[in-house]
């Protein structure tokens, strides 16, 4: 998808996540693969994505069978940048930070 502010440049169309139920089925930590010295992980519920007009679904990719996507952020940004910021705010407020090596 093209970045409306920068012709010729593309933007990320979806926010990549790991799907909790998929990690659980594989017996993996929720923070699998995360460098805890640089990052923290949060839990975002599908219903909260839907409540903010965003799609969230299981979307496995070759190097990550637990991959999911939160879709429509780029479209929202293009159509209404302020709504995009409000959606980010809303997701941040309802997300919960996970402890390192958190289990289901």
């Amino acid at each position, binding site marked *: 998808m093209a970045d409306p*502010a920068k012709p010729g440049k593309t933007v990320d169309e979806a926010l990549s996540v790991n799907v909790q139920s998929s990690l659980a089925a594989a017996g993996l930590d929720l923070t699998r693969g995360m460098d805890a010295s640089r990052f923290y992980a949060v839990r975002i519920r599908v219903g909260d994505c839907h409540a903010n007009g965003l799609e969230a679904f299981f979307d496995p990719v070759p190097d990550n069978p637990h991959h999911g996507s939160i879709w429509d952020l780029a479209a929202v940004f293009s159509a209404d940048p302020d709504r995009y910021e409000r959606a980010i*705010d809303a997701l941040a407020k309802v997300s919960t930070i996970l402890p390192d090596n958190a289990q289901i």
Partner: protein
Amino acid sequence: MSQPFPVPKLGQPAAPPGASGLTTALAAAADDAATRAFHAAVTKAMELSEAMVVAGDAEPIDQTILADTVRLLLPAISSLGLPSPVVLPLQNGGIGAEWHERGMNIELRFRGLSGVYAVIEDARGIVPEFHGRDPSLQHAVSALQEFARRSNG
């Protein structure tokens, strides 16, 4: 190992003509504690961004956006003696600066042409809540002045 931070050390002479806005802004900055802390935070954000780019998790920070961020924030941070914000890369090359202390949540998101978006929340209710565009940092500076009063008082 990250790429070297593409600015001279603070206190060095101003950058030559043609240098980036970021270079000029930081080179011309006062060499005070607040400025040094902000410089360190920006450096850390760039290192984090580079790690995310290597991992395929993000695009590089847009250098124009970074330069504008520093140019807009540095005068307030230096003159008010503010603690450094947490500086972090945002989606698609943007950059954020956040303070979460003293009962205040101040988030400034720089994303290029879409302008600065500010989130200002004050648990004490002294500074009005604000969520919206703040191109001249009018709301942000007002909140940062209150934040400085609490931090330095």
